[in-house]
């Protein structure tokens, strides 16, 4: 039975948790005993003497602190170097966090209460700094926190002196996490490439090739150009080649990914446009403003959550999807009922009237929300990304937009192909008079499809708010591209719209690096104009008789 299995699982999970908890407590106790009984007292003593005016004493104390290897010392030592370490009249030392005035305990970092008075800054000179920095680096490289070790490795890489390299080399041997190891290997390889020892250089070249990062390109170029040893010159050139071709490949993959995510937005914008254009033969110039309304609805939902449901803010996006859809659907239905329906059969006038509507919508949004862009935040679960290779990160928000667009396209396809409403829509698209004779309420279909088209654009607005700027003129920037998708994809064909938006999105992003965004747009436009020479009905023309 599923329930018993579930309970069994829970029970097992509970056991695991208990074991873990005990393990934690034991580890914690050991830690406390070690640091408290053996280390903390002398450490604090040593820290106190850092305030000593005698620099020999300070030096000795620094060496003791380094030997302790305790990561809790890092903030205090950092404070010492930045002249943020303060000493009280009783000799106790405290530090303040950067840009703060409150005193903190040197080892625990907790704010001391009550705040001791009469503290003064611990004098620090460059000699002490020079001695403290390697100690600090050593402590950081051995810190239990991965991020601290990573940052320290990168910092030392930037410093690039013999002392830093020596510290790195010894830490590298004990490092376990691959990410940090790679960062350390990079720094070591950079150093060794600059050395004059051929053996070291060859070993470093192998590492550089294995890492494949472009940050070593400068050193490799110098090595490939000016080294007496021909074999090293050749190996460096080869490594450089490797890295560059890898970089090109990664750039291409990145462009493809960006193209697909742009295509998803275009798809969401153009889907509704294609459906209404196919059905009614009118171009809705206010369609871009539906994107804008959807994005602003997302913003409004975010504000509402911040004010009334602050605990659930990270889930505001889930609520924004239906809210934006319904809001824009309603706007679309209203638009159809009040304006569009009186202009059927006059497509050019519809174009002008809907342009007028878009002006009104833009101005209204400007008056309510201001002319500036508003800040729509990514929820934390959409922050970050998957690093699929060194230097190529696929951000979660863009992945989510792609998945969302696919889901909407599938839903629209199901609606058009598998429901009664979809059947009627297709019938009206093919032959309005005949469909009407067969008893289909064509006017009602028009209204709902117009609303649905606007609603899909509203969903596009939600997606857009996660990867782009949200401002009153947002719709204007996407509308022309989505018109081009409709022109290219043909009217009323879902497959055409999908292929056209993918094509336009990807071509745009591929042209951008070497042609620039503008020239890319012009090339795409020229391509479209030439394309409709051959296939005036778009990629997937409806077969059979189409009204001219």
């Amino acid at each position, binding site marked *: 039975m599923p329930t018993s299995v579930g309970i069994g699982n829970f029970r097992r999970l509970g056991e695991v948790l208990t074991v873990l908890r005990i393990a934690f407590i034991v580890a914690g106790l050991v830690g406390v005993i070690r640091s408290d009984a053996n280390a903390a007292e002398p450490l604090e003593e040593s820290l106190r003497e850092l305030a000593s005016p005698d620099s020999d004493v300070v030096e000795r104390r620094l060496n003791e602190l380094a030997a302790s290897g305790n990561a809790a010392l890092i903030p205090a030592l950092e404070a010492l170097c930045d002249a943020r370490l303060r000493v009280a009249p009783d000799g106790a030392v405290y530090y303040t966090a950067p840009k703060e005035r409150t005193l903190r305990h040197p080892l625990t970092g907790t704010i001391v209460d009550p705040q001791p008075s009469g503290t003064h800054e611990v004098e620090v000179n460059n000699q002490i700094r020079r001695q403290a920095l390697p100690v600090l680096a050593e402590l950081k490289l051995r810190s239990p926190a991965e991020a601290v070790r990573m940052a320290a490795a990168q910092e030392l890489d930037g410093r690039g002196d013999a002392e830093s390299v020596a510290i790195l080399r010894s830490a590298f041997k004990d490092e376990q996490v691959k990410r940090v190891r790679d960062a350390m290997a990079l720094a070591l390889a950079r150093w060794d490439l600059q050395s004059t020892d051929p053996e070291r250089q060859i070993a470093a070249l192998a590492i550089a090739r294995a890492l494949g990062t472009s940050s070593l390109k400068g050193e490799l170029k110098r090595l490939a150009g000016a080294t007496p040893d021909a074999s090293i010159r050749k190996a460096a050139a080869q490594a450089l080649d490797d890295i560059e071709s890898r970089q090109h490949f990664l750039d291409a993959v990145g462009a493809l990914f960006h193209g697909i995510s742009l295509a998803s937005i275009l798809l969401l914008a153009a889907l509704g446009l294609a459906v209404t*254009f196919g059905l009614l*033969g*009118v*171009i809705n110039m206010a369609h871009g403003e539906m994107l804008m309304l959807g994005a602003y609805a997302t913003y409004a939902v975010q504000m509402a959550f911040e004010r009334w449901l602050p605990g659930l803010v990270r889930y505001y996006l889930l609520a924004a999807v239906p809210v934006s859809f319904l809001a824009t659907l309603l706007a679309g239905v209203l638009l159809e009922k009040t*304006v569009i329906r*009186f*202009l059927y059969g*006059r*497509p*050019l*006038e*519809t*174009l*002008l*009237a809907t*342009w*007028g*509507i*878009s*002006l*009104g919508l*833009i*101005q209204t949004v*400007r*008056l309510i929300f201001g002319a500036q862009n508003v800040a729509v935040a990514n929820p934390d679960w959409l922050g970050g990304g998957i690093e699929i290779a060194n230097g190529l990160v696929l951000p979660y928000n863009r992945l989510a937009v792609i998945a969302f667009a696919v889901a909407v396209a599938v839903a629209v396809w199901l609606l058009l192909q598998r429901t009664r409403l979809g059947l009627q829509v297709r019938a009206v698209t093919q032959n309005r008079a005949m469909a009407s004779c067969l008893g289909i309420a064509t006017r009602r279909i028009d209204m709902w499809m117009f609303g649905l088209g606007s609603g899909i654009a509203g969903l596009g607005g939600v997606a857009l708010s996660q990867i782009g700027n949200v401002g009153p003129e947002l719709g*204007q920037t996407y509308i*022309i591209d989505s*018109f*081009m998708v409709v*022109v290219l994809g043909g009217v009323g064909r879902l497959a055409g719209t999908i292929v056209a938006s993918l094509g336009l999105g990807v071509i745009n992003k591929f042209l951008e690096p070497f042609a*620039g*965004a*503008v*020239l890319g*747009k*012009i090339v795409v*436009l020229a391509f*479209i*104009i*030439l394309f*409709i*020479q051959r296939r*005036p009905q778009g990629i997937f023309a409806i077969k059979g008789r189409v009204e*001219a």
Partner: protein
Amino acid sequence: MFARARQRLLEMHSARAWLGILAATTVILLLLPLSNGVLAPSSALHLPDYLVPLLGKFLCFAIVALAMDLIWGFAGILSLGHGLFFALGGYAMGMHLMRSMAGEGVYRSALPDFMVFLDWKTLPWYWRGFDSFPFALAAAVVGPGLLAMVFGYFAFRSKIKGVYFSIVTQALTYAAMLLFFQNSAGFGGNNGLTDFKRLLGFSLHAPTTRLGLYVVSGLTLLFSYVACRYIVTSKFGRVLTAIRDAELKARFCGYESTHYKLFVWTFSAALCALAGALYVPQVGIINPSEMQPSSSIEMAIWVAVGGRGSLAGPILGAWLINAGKSWLTAAFPSAWLYALGALFILVTLFLPQGIAGAIARLTRRRS
């Protein structure tokens, strides 16, 4: 010979209408300049100097409205690309104005200021020849005309029409705007071309030069109107109207509709470019914002308000809307977009034939 000319003139307009045109021409080209140039500034009927370039600008817009009406009203093609032709004509004139003041810019260089700023050493090839006024004027008309011809050839050949044509022309204009925004395109980027000093040796800041430009614009409008009227009342014009109303039937009767549309499209673009060339010295600046999709659509609303297919109506529409715009953007800045938006909706819903259509209906009812 004289009798035939008279006959043709009467085909274009009734005698009463000609009298009306004469009256309008007298007011625009004689009385207004006289009131500015001759009457003392203290006189109540004096036209203040600052209004002259504004009225001159309106005359240029009227030429644009004529060009739009010619293809929309008589060929049924709604272009959203006339802002491009207008701006290209303006840029050609602007380039001449920049060249004519070589060495007098902020940097005292032979190159225009923005090129010095970009650290360019030589003039790009497409700026050559613009030192000469006749060349610049010819380029202002022929360049955009050629662009229109090539674009139109491909578009009409593949039977792009209706809203398809509108949005493709809009995309063309948009792409051109992006191009002109680029500094590297060599047209001054964002700021465009401005700070002009003189045209053919006359200072552009002198009131007499401004009055002169106003009169030239008025004359151009008059000739454009007569030319357009001539075209639409000729046999060519009637075929064009036939194509507008039933393209397939016209084709079956043996008229190659592509050629007719291509000619009128190119003519309209060139006319629009001429208006742009006259506009730039009067407003003293040309920049890529003239190519915004919204400016082209505003041109369409002048025609829609005035009344498509009437030639005189769109001129009136252009004047009314621009007068309203000048007043509203100064008096109630945030209301202007609402007013314009409402105008788009109300005119298409309730005045499908525009002001001209409404007047015609009223007079018909009375008679």
